[in-house]
């Protein structure tokens, strides 16, 4: 359990944040620039004094009521800064050793493991100014890991990188999440990154935490919708792999009581796959659709109809314990008489796979070889593994 409560006045800005989420897992602190995300993680790290409480499982790091305020150097929190902050007077190995020598706990992440996980072997003797932006962040992540942290804080580690450099770093963050089980707090204003990495989302607005919860719930939150824009709105569903569809070679993923077919290398039953169904890519039907090219069709019941920006409504549909969201025009809402309780079919024009193996207890047996890619012309709407964008 990660417990954070912080109050702090900084000039006209007031931080008033509170969240409590299970560990391990990746907590995304999400919000517009300047909403206080970085201020909050500086409080968690102890670099910024504030009133409140920070506790991780049994360890109380800050409790101003009990006069507990452990200094940052004793908090055992690994911090990856936006601008890496590598020490310029040491080479890569020197930076890593600096952290290793000062680790306040027995090593559970070994030097060799870090080099292996982050592919740092070839960089060891490089000076920090000889590294690319992506390499710098990998070294910074490795350095933070070698301090044997019980919590990792990542402050927009990819924000200063361009898109292709981002893709050089993101897979390593996924490895961290899946293989090391260190709780992480990830600050970002990029929703795609959040979808790739996070288990939980804490939404911040002008210094306050306004909502928190699992990614699936939070992907439907109105505050999150307001930030990411109408075109990016959509349900994020953590589905379970059911197996491979022999005729198409696609992976069958169970979501709610339905099933989607996606293109993925992960075909081992039981693995988790995160799928995003953008609201604008769903079509709602009130009768069973027939003779359509769309292959991914989910059945469900409308639970809510809310007005969205433009001439549109957002239709929340329960598909068996999981809610997805479709965007339709006001006219369509009227003509189809879409109201809560109405059984509907949701046609998925396209979807995107957001995470290869999210929080999956990796199956003991190795994954079967990747399925052959079906010819594009006859393929049902499906998604490819990241980093490919949404397929049409």
């Amino acid at each position, binding site marked *: 359990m990660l417990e954070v409560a912080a109050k702090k006045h900084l000039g006209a800005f007031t931080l008033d944040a509170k969240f409590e989420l299970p560990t391990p897992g990746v907590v995304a602190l999400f919000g517009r620039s300047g909403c206080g995300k970085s201020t909050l993680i500086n409080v968690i790290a102890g670099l910024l004094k504030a009133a409140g409480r920070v506790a991780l499982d049994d360890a109380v790091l800050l409790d101003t009521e009990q006069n507990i305020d452990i200094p940052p*150097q004793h908090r055992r*929190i690994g911090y990856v*800064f936006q601008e890496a902050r590598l020490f*310029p*007077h040491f080479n890569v190995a020197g930076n890593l050793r*600096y952290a290793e020598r*000062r*680790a306040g706990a027995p090593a559970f992440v070994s030097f060799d493991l870090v080099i292996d996980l982050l592919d740092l072997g070839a960089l060891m003797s490089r000076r920090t100014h000889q590294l690319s932006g992506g390499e710098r962040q990998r070294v910074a992540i490795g*350095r*933070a890991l070698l301090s044997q942290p019980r919590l990792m804080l990542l402050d927009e580690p990819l924000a200063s990188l361009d898109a292709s450099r981002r893709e050089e770093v993101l897979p390593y963050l996924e490895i961290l999440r899946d293989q090391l089980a260190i709780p992480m707090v990830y600050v970002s204003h990029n929703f795609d990154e959040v979808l790739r990495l996070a288990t939980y989302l804490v939404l911040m607005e002008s210094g306050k935490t306004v909502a928190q919860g699992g990614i699936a719930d939070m992907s439907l939150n109105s505050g999150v919708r307001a930030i990411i824009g109408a075109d990016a709105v959509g349900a994020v569903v953590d589905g379970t792999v059911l197996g491979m569809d022999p005729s198409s070679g696609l992976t069958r993923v169970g979501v709610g009581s339905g099933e989607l077919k996606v293109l993925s290398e992960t075909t081992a039953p039981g693995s988790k796959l995160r799928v995003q169904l953008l609201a604008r890519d769903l079509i709602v039907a009130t009768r069973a659709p027939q003779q359509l090219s769309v292959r991914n069709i989910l059945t469900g019941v409308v639970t809510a109809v809310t007005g969205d920006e433009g001439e549109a409504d957002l239709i929340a549909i329960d598909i068996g314990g999981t809610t997805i969201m479709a965007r339709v025009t006001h006219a369509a809402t009227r003509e189809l008489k879409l109201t809560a309780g109405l059984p509907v079919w949701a046609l998925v024009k396209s979807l995107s796979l957001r995470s290869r193996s999210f929080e999956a207890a990796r199956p003991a047996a190795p994954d079967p070889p990747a399925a052959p890619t079906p010819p594009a012309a006859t393929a049902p709407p499906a998604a490819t593994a990241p980093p490919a964008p949404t397929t049409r």
Partner: protein
Amino acid sequence: MMWLSANEAEALSLSLSVAARSVALSLPFAILLAWVLTRRRFIGRTLLDAFVHLPLVLPPVVVGYLLLLLFGTRGPIGSWLAQAFGIELIFTRHGAALATAVMSFPLMVRAMRISLENVDRGLEDAARTLGAGALDRFTTITLPLMLPGVLAGVITAFSAALGEFGAVITFVSNIPGETRTLPLALYTALQTPGGDHAAARLAIISIVLGFSGLLLSEWFAHRVRRLLGR
């Protein structure tokens, strides 16, 4: 050094020895003060800042006079040093080193402060999250990164110490072999009838010394910059 006369060699080696002692004496205090003045906010900071810079604006003779009052045989600090440690400052090279240290101290602090202000405090925060305590951070991050400034301060102070005249002659007088450094020797030569030739030679020695100092400092600065990865 066969091309130097005995007197010249004596003045030169004395100058170097006094300057080296002066730098060694002021270096730790200068680093401490640069850090305190840059990083700490406290009441009286401006006053301390002004006090450190006082030797820059005072006539050196005044500094020498004040040193006489404080460190003279009957001065409060001078008499204590003599009784407790048997250290005689007046009319000795130790006194010359003290006088040059006081005079060059503000130059040293200034150079270090500029460098320290350019040290990214974010790197110190990063070290802190990695488990480094205050002293650890200072010695492993701050000090190495402000090294160009420390070096610049040392070189400036050393050069100033070689050339200090007023404070030295007022405080410890002009004693051959003990306090007669290069500038004092040059002055003496000029005061001596027929000493023009000797004065010119001493001036040339000073110029060569200063020039090699500059070249050496450039080379050092280059090495340090490479060490810091810039």
